[in-house]
């Protein structure tokens, strides 16, 4: 692992250029070209049929449910959608590829020229997408000693392949892209995108060049980057490997490298000379894939505001900080909760306060009770009502946390809790003056030590006494003001 400082120094001189090819498994019930079911973890070869097995005479029939999911992603990335795209056969021999070819798309993909607005730590960054195409997954080969086992449950699972332009400038940006794409496909309900289950997989094309250079360097392709943790690690180590080779007077060879997560390094898999000639040609068993008006209408109606747009709006309209906005859009249910709470609040500017309550109290309580946002026992309207009670001074923020806890637990309305327990904030100066008078009178030593002795820390003691006397209901601002007057400092 390269030391961060060392990498920093290298990157001042060298510019990495990264493009990603990301496979996303679409969440359909059945396979892309046959009726076999899709399920993670089923016993090997139980989710197959003659077509999945590549038996002679079988023919593919396109599962239209796949199209709707892919189109959602196409529209959400502002891609050009081809009215008639084509499936093509990509040939290579491998035991987990039953037909000897993979049905994919080649020169007429479903989507082209889109972009993804990546939510980074410094705001939105637009990354161009060259294409999004449909294809079927292959099976899985496991090597056990001298034997190889083939499981075809995954064969024929629908995938989209998302190909970015080579314009990501760092391993971190590549990581941010993956997280944004992950968020988007889950947001759109088109994939569970669980990397551990192989539902989201990433290959990276990496090259480096001297900063200021226009021409691209020779690239390598990194395969098998199968967790978020490894995306950045694998790319970073490849960047460093390439820079060291070039600085050592060597040349980068165009090759495919396999990331070995256990050893934390990549190994050469095949060189350009060994690359397959895939012999693409349009699949004669499948007619062109047609996107007509009705399906586009259905897709457009089904899409709501995207995470990147909400991220912007939360900052611009609701005054939410960048970090909080980023957290709020990390999950659709959370953002929806926020929007519903804001809608229930009388002022648009209530957003910042609502965000604070959601991100601290609500997420804390949900986490403690192992509950998802979608199943939150507290409704957004309830949270908004609580925030209003704090904002208009009915209760203090501190009491508010108590009320939150009780309301979360029992479902009782915050106003009812406040009323029943008499938690309204004490803001009457006359009543507070009497209480303060009594407390200062009962603690003459402390009063003198503060006023004359200059022991500032004792102010807190008096505030604490007032709060104790009022069970925390005293308005802290008025209390502080009156205490200063009574103590003469």
């Amino acid at each position, binding site marked *: 692992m390269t030391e961060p400082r060392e990498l920093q120094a290298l990157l001042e001189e060298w510019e990495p250029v990264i493009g990603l090819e990301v496979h996303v498994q679409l969440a359909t019930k059945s396979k892309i070209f046959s009726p076999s079911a899709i399920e993670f973890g089923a016993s090997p070869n139980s989710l197959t049929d003659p077509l999945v097995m590549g038996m002679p*005479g079988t023919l593919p*029939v396109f599962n239209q449910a796949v199209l709707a999911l892919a189109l959602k992603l196409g529209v959400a990335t502002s891609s050009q959608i081809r009215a008639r795209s084509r499936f093509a056969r990509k040939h290579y021999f491998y035991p987990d590829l039953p037909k000897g070819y993979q049905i994919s798309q080649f020169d007429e993909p479903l989507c082209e020229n889109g972009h993804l607005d990546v939510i980074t730590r410094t705001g939105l960054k637009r990354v161009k997408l060259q294409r999004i195409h449909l294809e079927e997954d292959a099976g899985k080969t496991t090597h056990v000693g001298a034997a190889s086992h083939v499981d075809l449950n995954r064969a024929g699972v629908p995938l989209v392949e998302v190909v970015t332009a080579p314009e990501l400038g760092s391993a971190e940006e590549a990581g941010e892209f993956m997280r944004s794409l992950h968020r988007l496909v889950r947001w759109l309900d088109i994939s569970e995108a669980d990397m551990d289950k192989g539902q989201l997989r990433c290959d990276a094309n990496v090259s480096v060049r001297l900063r200021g250079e226009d021409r691209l360097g020779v690239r390598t392709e990194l395969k098998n980057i199968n967790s978020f943790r490894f995306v950045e690690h694998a790319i970073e180590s490849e960047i460093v490997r390439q820079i060291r080779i070039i600085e050592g007077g060597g040349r980068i060879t165009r090759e495919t490298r396999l990331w070995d997560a256990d050893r934390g390094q990549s190994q050469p898999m095949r060189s350009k000379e060994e690359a397959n000639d895939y012999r693409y040609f349009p699949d004669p*068993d499948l*007619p062109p894939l047609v996107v007509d008006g009705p399906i586009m209408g259905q897709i457009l109606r089904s899409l709501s505001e995207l995470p990147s747009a909400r991220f912007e709006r939360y900052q611009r309209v609701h005054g939410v900080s960048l970090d909080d906005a980023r957290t709020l859009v990390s999950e659709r249910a959370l953002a929806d909760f926020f929007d519903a709470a804001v809608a229930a609040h009388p002022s648009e500017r209530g957003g910042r306060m609502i965000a604070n309550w959601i991100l601290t109290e609500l997420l804390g309580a949900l986490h403690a009770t192992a509950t998802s946002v979608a199943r939150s026992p507290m409704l957004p309207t309830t949270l908004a009502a609580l925030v209003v009670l704090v904002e208009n001074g009915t209760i203090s923020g501190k009491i508010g946390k108590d009320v939150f806890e009780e309301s979360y637990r029992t479902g009782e309305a915050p106003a009812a809790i406040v009323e029943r327990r008499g938690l309204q904030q004490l803001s009457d100066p006359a009543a507070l003056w009497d209480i303060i008078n009594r407390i200062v009178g009962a603690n003459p030593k402390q009063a003198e030590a503060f006023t004359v002795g200059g022991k500032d820390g004792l102010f807190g003691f008096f505030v604490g006494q007032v709060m104790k006397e009022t069970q925390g209901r005293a308005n802290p601002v008025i209390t502080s003001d009156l205490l200063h007057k009574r103590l003469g400092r």
Partner: protein
Amino acid sequence: MTTQFWSVADTARRIAAGEISATQIVETMLARIAAIDGELGAYLAVDGIGARAAAAEIDRQRAVNAILGPLAGVPIALKDVLVTRGLATTAASKILQGWIPPYDAHVVDRLRSAGAIILGKVNCDEFAMGSSTENSAYQPTRNPWDPTRVPGGSSGGSSAAVAAGLCAASLGTDTGGSIRQPAAFCGVVGLKPTYGRVSRWGVVAFASSLDQVGPLTRSVADAALVLQTIAGFDPRDSTSLDTPVPRFTDALTGEVRGLRIGIPQEYFEAMDDEIRAGLTRTVDALVERGATTVDLSLPHTKHALPAYYLVAPAEASSNLARFDGVRYGQRVEAADLLEMYARTRGAGFGPEVKRRIMLGTYALRSGYYDAYYKKAQQVRTLIKRDFDRAFQFCDVILTPTTPTPAFRFGAKTNPVDMYLADVFTLSCNLAGLPGISVPCGLTSEGLPIGAQLLGRPLDEAVLLRAGGVIEAAVGLGERRPAGIGGIA
């Protein structure tokens, strides 16, 4: 006349009427196969058990007055590229030896539901690649008219079995003439439907954009009946056409008055004199009955053969990639994976199949696609346009089916000579049109001659109508092959 040569309709009618049982029909057929197929070589597998059980079931249904299917008790043979549940399917290749499919082809489903009885699987060129059935990995099939000659191909087992009375009808597949050419060689009717008319589900693929299943029968009326049973939309085949199927038997009006017969000059340039005489006889008969002829040109015909030999091998090289020894069929073990592939495919495929895989692999290589496969597809469009234009001036096109009658075994040693045997039949597949071959007499040596009719897309009816008239006027009548089996 003997039961073996009864028509499809007759057989079904007599069984329904109780004149004969399905079991009697099946036993007669099985006995005849046992007697003469050793010499003929049509069947790769005879399903005696399955056929007897199916016949018993038909007889049981009849005994309880159940409604019988239109083909109830009709014994049928299937080209061995049609997948049959529980019955070995080899595509006449060693590589599929021992494979017992777990499912039935769509056409087999349809036949079974209509009450037809599957007698067995018949020989063909390996993976339907060839024009003589000499490319079968298992056995030669002889022409029943002259055992020194081939039955044509690739559906040579289908045509020989029908001609010799070893089944009432058979199914073949036609990628470049593989139904029509053997039908012509064996003096039977062979119909290739419009591309998409019959489902390809369960057809071992040769060239997906060209393959169609169709009937081989002893009469045009039988072809209509069998086509009726197998045609129609199937959601399991994405290239299947979702259009209504007409009543094909209604097409046999016996009437051609006013029908415009197109005579394309390109198809009458080079052929055997006796074939030419047969065609002249056919044209005269049609004109006598009130049809008119239209001389026309299909100028891109000369490009059909080269275009076909790019498209078909390219698709075949892809379709045959699945035969890798991993999941089914033959495997030759080896030390590593690549070696296993090489040995399995090396031992499993015959020379013609290998030749076509190599041709196709070459044509699809990166950088060659535009010059070969894509260019050939463009030629297809031109050929289709030729036909579209021609059909503005005529209703049906008449050509010879083959340039020569059946040739002798081993006569075509050069692959290109063999490819030329299909020169008149290829265009029909490239354009996706329906075509039929109908016998139009015998040569002086007693070999059958076939007349080919081509129709507009989905107009199988006009082929049956004109074909029926040709059959009645210049067909073989009661003449049966005497080479093998003769009149038993």
